[in-house]
């Protein structure tokens, strides 16, 4: 199993910080371009996903952790993705301007 020796001195944290910063700059840069809607969103999501992975793996040292810890970490992410996919079709579609779902009537009313 992983011990502190496993990652001690093996990580170049300046380089990792550089990678994450470049990803951040790229994300902001993409958001400011006139790129098409879906392409822009997908590019930003992809860059954020890479950033997420780098932080999880390189800064939180997940790659050095024993399998059981990796399972716990990845299961939580997989669980929430399944939750989202599972609930998406049942999401209550409230028509806020409609007759029965006019939020202004039951939320704003004083």
């Amino acid at each position, binding site marked *: *199993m992983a011990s502190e020796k496993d990652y001690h001195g093996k990580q170049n944290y300046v380089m990792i910080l550089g990678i994450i910063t470049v990803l951040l700059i790229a994300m902001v840069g993409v*958001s400011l371009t006139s790129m098409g809607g879906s392409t822009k969103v997908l590019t930003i999501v992809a860059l954020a996903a890479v950033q997420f992975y780098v*932080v999880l793996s390189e800064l939180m040292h997940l790659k050095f952790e024993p399998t059981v810890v990796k399972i716990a970490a990845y299961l*939580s*992410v997989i669980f929430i993705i399944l939750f989202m996919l599972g609930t998406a079709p049942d999401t209550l579609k409230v028509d806020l301007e409609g007759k029965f779902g006019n939020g*202004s009537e039951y*939320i*704003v009313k*004083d």
Partner: protein
Amino acid sequence: MSDVALERVPKGRLGVWLLIAGEVVIFGGFIASYILARMEYPEFGSKEAAGALNVWVGTLNTLILLVSNWTMVVAHEAALEKNLAKMKSYMTYTLILGLIFLGIKLGYEWPTDFHEGHTINSAKAIAGAEAGGEIMKISLFWSYYFLMTGFHGLHIVVGSLVIFFVMLGCSKGENLHRVELAGAYWHLVELVWVILFPMFYLIK
């Protein structure tokens, strides 16, 4: 597969990772809910909603949090080398950066939003006016924004307190493994922000 055995993982580290897994599920629930609402209401991307947020202030805050994560891993490396002075310095830098993040959020960003009439329940703030469907949808965006960034901010406060007390406790060279555990929690705060930042500030 011997490293699947739970008893071989130090209890503190296992506990922190389970806490992190729980936090991922909690924040994941919020994020999933927001994504579903965002797909339903394109108004979230309008100038009165996501478009009203200052990208540059958000970017600055993201950068501050990134650097604080770097100072935290450096403090952890210093703890492994039993370099207590360096460890304490870098943990202090982490604390200062965390407080700067909170200062920008609570001292500049949120007051600006409030001044523009955006609150966790903006629709109520515009009570008396005709709060039509679009206003309600925009209000929903601000509810998500304040709830999630507020909850994240609360984690920064807790993380800062943890780092502070761990720093005090480890200053005599005892229980240095706690620096790693506090660091893991701090990285979780960064991990969540990595998702929240593009979600609120960049995707319009």
